[in-house]
C-alpha cells in the first residue's frame, strides 16, 4: 500500500491583491467559494487512489485560505483525510478568536502567518492590510486557541527597507517567539505593477539583499533557531520536530498531490499543474472531469538532479548513494578547496555531501557548479 502522503490544497481567494504577489489568486468572488470547495472535493475524490489513506501532511495555501467563507472552509477541513501535520496559511487580519477556535476544532495543528513585516510603512509598500498590532493580536488569538506550532512569513528587501528596519522586524518576531520562521527575499517579478512602481529602489535593495540574508541567518541562529533550510528556521525541541514537515517533503523529493487551481503535483515520476483558471477548473470537476493540466514527465535523471538541487538546501548531509553521475567531481574538489562544500559518511558508511554555512549562502551558484 503506497501513494502520496502529502496533500496541498490551494485556496486562491483574497480580499485584495498585493502588488508584489505572483501566486494564483482570485479577489473576492464570495459567491464562488462554495462551488470551488465542491470542485476541490471532487478533485480529491478523483485522485484519492493516488493518495495514501492516512497522510503525513496536508497544507492549505493560497491566496488567503482564511479569507474563504467560514462554512466552506469548515466543509473542506471536515472532508480532508486525517494528517499528522495540518497547516493553514493565514493573513493576520483574518485571524479572529472564532477562526482560531474553528481551525483548532477541525484538527489544524499548525498555522503559517503572513506577517511580512512589522513596519507600518513597509506593510503599506507591500499593500498589506494588516498593521503591526493586527499581527500581534492574531498571534495571541492563535496561542489562546491552543496552537503550539506557529510559523511567521517575513519578507526582506522591501522598497524603503534598511538593515535597521530588518533588524527591528527580526526582533519583533523573536519577541513573539514563533516555533518557525520563513524569511524570503522580495522577488519582484519583471512587468508587475510593483516592479514598475519601485524599479530604482528594488535595484538598491537587490544589492543590499546580500547583507540582509547574512543578517537574517545571523540573528535567527543567534537566537537559537535552527537554519534547517535556505529560507527556513525552527526552534529546536527535544520532543518535537518543528521543521515544516509538509515543505520538508518537497525538499526531500517525496511525492505530493496538489489540488485546486494552479496547484502542482508530483507523483510517480510525473509532474502536473492544474489550470489556473477558476471557472474552467470548476466547470471540469462539475462535469466529473479532471481539470486541464500541464503535464511534465520527469525522467529518473531529472529527478536525481532535483534531489541534489533540493537536498542541498537543507542543513543535513545529502546521501549520494542514489545520485550517481549527478555531481561533477572536479567541481566538487574545487568547491571543497574553497570551503563551500563538505563530504562525509552517513550511518551506513555511504558518501554524503553538504554545504558549509558560506556554501549555503551561495547555494544556487554552488549547486550549478556541482551539477554534472
Amino acid at each position, binding site marked *: 500500500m503506497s501513494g502520496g502522503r502529502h496533500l*496541498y490544497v490551494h485556496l486562491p481567494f483574497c480580499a485584495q491583491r498585493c502588488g508584489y504577489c505572483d501566486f494564483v489568486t482570485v479577489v473576492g468572488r464570495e459567491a464562488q467559494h462554495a462551488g470551488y470547495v465542491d470542485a476541490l472535493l471532487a478533485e480529491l475524490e478523483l485522485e484519492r487512489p493516488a493518495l495514501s489513506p492516512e497522510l503525513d501532511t496536508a497544507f492549505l495555501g493560497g491566496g488567503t485560505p482564511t479569507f474563504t467563507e467560514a462554512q466552506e472552509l469548515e466543509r473542506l477541513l471536515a472532508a480532508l483525510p486525517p494528517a499528522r501535520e495540518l497547516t493553514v496559511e493565514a493573513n493576520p487580519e483574518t485571524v479572529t478568536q472564532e477562526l482560531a477556535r474553528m481551525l483548532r476544532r477541525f484538527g489544524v495543528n499548525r498555522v503559517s502567518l503572513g506577517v511580512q513585516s512589522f513596519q507600518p510603512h513597509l506593510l503599506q509598500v507591500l499593500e498589506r492590510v494588516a498593521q503591526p498590532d493586527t499581527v500581534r493580536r492574531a498571534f495571541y488569538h492563535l496561542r489562546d486557541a491552543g496552537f503550539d506550532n506557529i510559523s511567521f512569513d517575513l519578507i526582506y528587501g522591501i522598497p524603503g527597507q534598511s538593515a535597521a528596519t530588518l533588524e527591528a522586524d527580526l526582533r519583533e518576531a523573536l519577541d513573539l517567539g514563533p516555533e518557525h520562521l520563513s*524569511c*524570503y*527575499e522580495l*522577488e519582484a517579478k519583471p512587468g508587475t505593477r510593483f516592479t514598475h512602481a519601485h524599479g530604482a529602489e528594488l535595484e538598491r535593495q537587490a544589492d543590499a*539583499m*546580500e*547583507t540582509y*540574508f*547574512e543578517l537574517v541567518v545571523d540573528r535567527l541562529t543567534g537566537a537559537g533557531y535552527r537554519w534547517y533550510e*535556505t*529560507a527556513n528556521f525552527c526552534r529546536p525541541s527535544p520532543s518535537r520536530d518543528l521543521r515544516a514537515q509538509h*515543505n520538508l517533503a*518537497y*525538499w526531500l523529493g517525496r511525492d*505530493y498531490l*496538489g489540488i485546486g487551481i*494552479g*496547484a*502542482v503535483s*508530483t507523483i510517480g515520476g510525473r*509532474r502536473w*499543474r492544474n489550470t489556473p483558471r477558476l471557472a474552467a477548473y470548476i466547470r471540469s470537476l462539475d462535469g466529473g472531469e479532471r481539470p486541464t493540466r500541464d503535464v*511534465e514527465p520527469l525522467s529518473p535523471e*531529472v529527478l536525481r*538532479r*532535483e534531489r541534489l*538541487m*533540493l537536498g542541498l*538546501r537543507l542543513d543535513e548531509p545529502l546521501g549520494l548513494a542514489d545520485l550517481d553521475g549527478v555531481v561533477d567531481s572536479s567541481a566538487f574538489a*574545487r*568547491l571543497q*578547496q*574553497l570551503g*563551500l562544500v563538505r563530504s562525509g559518511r552517513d550511518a551506513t558508511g555511504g558518501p554524503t555531501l553538504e554545504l558549509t554555512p558560506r556554501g*549555503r*549562502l*551561495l*547555494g*544556487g*551558484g*554552488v*549547486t*550549478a*557548479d556541482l*551539477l554534472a
Partner: protein
Amino acid sequence: MTQDRIRNFSIIAHIDHGKSTLADRILELTHAVSDRDMREQVLDSMDLERERGITIKAQAVRVEWKGHQLNLIDTPGHVDFTYEVSRSLQACEGALLVVDAAQGTQAQTLANAYLAVENELEIVPVVNKIDLPQADPDAAGRELAELIGDDPDHVLRISAKTGVGVEDVLDAVVERVPPPSGDPEAPARALIFDSSYDQYRGVVAFVRVVDGRFSTREPLRAMALRTRFEAEELGFFSPTRRESGVLEAGEVGYIITGLKDVSRLRVGDTITSEKRPAAEPLPGYKEVKPMVFSGLFPTDSDDYPELRDALEKLKLNDAALFYEPETSQALGFGFRCGFLGLLHMEIVRERLEREFDLNLIVTAPNVAYRVKPPNGDWVEVHTPADMPNEVEEVEEPYIKASIIVPKEFVGTVMELNNDRRGTFDHMEYLSEARVHLTYELPLAEIVLDYYDQLKSRTRGYASFDYDVIGFRPGKLVRVDILVGGEPVDALSLILHRDSAYDRGRMLVERLREEIPRQHFDVAIQAAIGARVIARETVKARRKDVLAKCYGGDITRKRKLLERQKAGKKRMKQVGMVEVPQEAFLAVLNLDGEKKS
C-alpha cells in the same frame, strides 16, 4: 609596335579625387569600351574596391590614341601597398598627378608623387573636378606646380565627370611622357608589377616588358625566386582580355603561368627567358614583410575549418597575407595573421566576413618586434605571448608619417605626435593655408586609434600617409594580465615602459567590469615580470541562492539552475575563475578598443 609609339603611364590620385572616373573617360574617348558596355569605373573590378573607393589590385589597360599605344597602369591607392605602387610606377615612364580642385593635395598623393619622382617619371599635373562650385582650380594648380617644381601653366584643368579637358590629357601623355627605352634585341626581361590568381589558369602575372620579347609556350623563369614556368598565354587587357601571342620591349600585358601558388611569383621580381636568360634582374625587388599582426578567431569555434579554407583562398590572391594557426585560452582556435598595414588588415577582415560569410573576432593589432634574448640571436616576435621574459634588447618598427593639415591644426597634430612618442622631422608650407608635417613614430603607436584621433583633432581635414623606415630599439616591456593569479596568454601586451602603467590599469579596470562575481575574491592584476603594476578585485558574492522553493516552484527553479549551469559552461576557466568570453572580447576586440 615600335617603342617610340608606346606610352606607359599611371594615374596618381587621392581616394575620390577622380582616378577611376578619369580612367573611364579615357577608355570611352579611345573607344576601348562602347557606350553601351560602359560600366562606371571599369578598372575597379571588385565590389569591395568600388565601395571603398580604392583599388587593391593593379591592372593595366591598353588603348590607342592618335597612332600611339597607351598603357594605363592602375596603382593601388593606399599606403599599405606602397611597395606595389612603387613597382607599378617602375613599369611606367610617366604619371598623371590628379588633384581635386576643391580639396588640393593630400598626403597620399604627395607620397605617391614622391615615389614617381624617385622613379624618374615624367609627371603630368592635372587639376580635376573644375566643374564643382567650391572648386578653386587656381589655388590647387599653384600648389601642384610648386610641389613638383613645374610651371603653373603646365597644369591641366579638367572635369573627368563631364569630359572637359580629357582629350588634352591624352595629348599630354603622348607629348610629355617619354617612350620606353629598353633594348628590343637584348635577352628578355619583364618586371612583374602585379599578379592575381585564376582558379582555372593559375597565377596571372602583370608585366612590363623592358628588354627583348616574350612569346607563348616559351619556358620562363622568375629570377629572384628562381621559379620556372611556361608562358601558357600572353596578351593584354583592352579592357577585356586579348591574347596576343607576343609581348615586346616597352609593352605592358599579362602572362598566364599555370602556377598554382601565388607566392612563387612575387611583385617586383624579373621574368626572363629560360633559353637566353638575362644576366641581371631589373633593380628594386624586395620581399614585403607583414608589419601588423592580429589574431583572427571565428566567433563560433565550429567555423574554424571554414576560416582556414577562406584564408587559404585569400592567400592565393594576396601574397602579402601571412597566417599561422594560433590557440588562445580565451578565444579557442584561430590564426595569427600578418598584414602590410591597417588597411590591408581591414580589407582581409571584410573579405572574410563578406565573401566567406564568417563572423570573426579580430584581436587588437600589434606590430612585429625584433627581440634579442640574453646570449641569444635576434628573433622576430609576432605576438606578445611569444616575447621572452628576459630580453637584452627589443626593437620595434618605425614609420615616417606624412601629414598635411590646414595650418590652424598644426599645434594639435604636434601634440598628438608627441603623445605617441613621435620625433619631429620636418615642416613646410605647401601653400599659405596648408602645412606638410613629417614625423618619425613607432608603428605601434598608430596601429590602434591614431588615425581616428588625427581625424577628430583636425575635424577631418588632416590627410595622413606613412612609410616603414626600419626597426629601432625601444624601451618595451611585456605586460601580463593575471586573473586569480593565473596569467592569461591572450591578454599579454607589449608596451612602451612609460605607458605600461596607464594601459595596464585601464585593462584591469575594464576586466573588473566584465568578470562576474564569483564564490571568492578574484584579483585582476597587470604585471611586468614579477612586478604588479595595477590591481583590481572582483569582490566575492555573498549571496547566490533563491529564497523560496516549494512544490510549485521546483520545475522553474530547476530550469533556472540548468540555465545558470549552461552559462557557466560557456565561460572559460582561468585557474579557478570563470571568465565569460565577452570579458576577453571587451579587452581584445579591435572594435572595443576603438570605442575607448
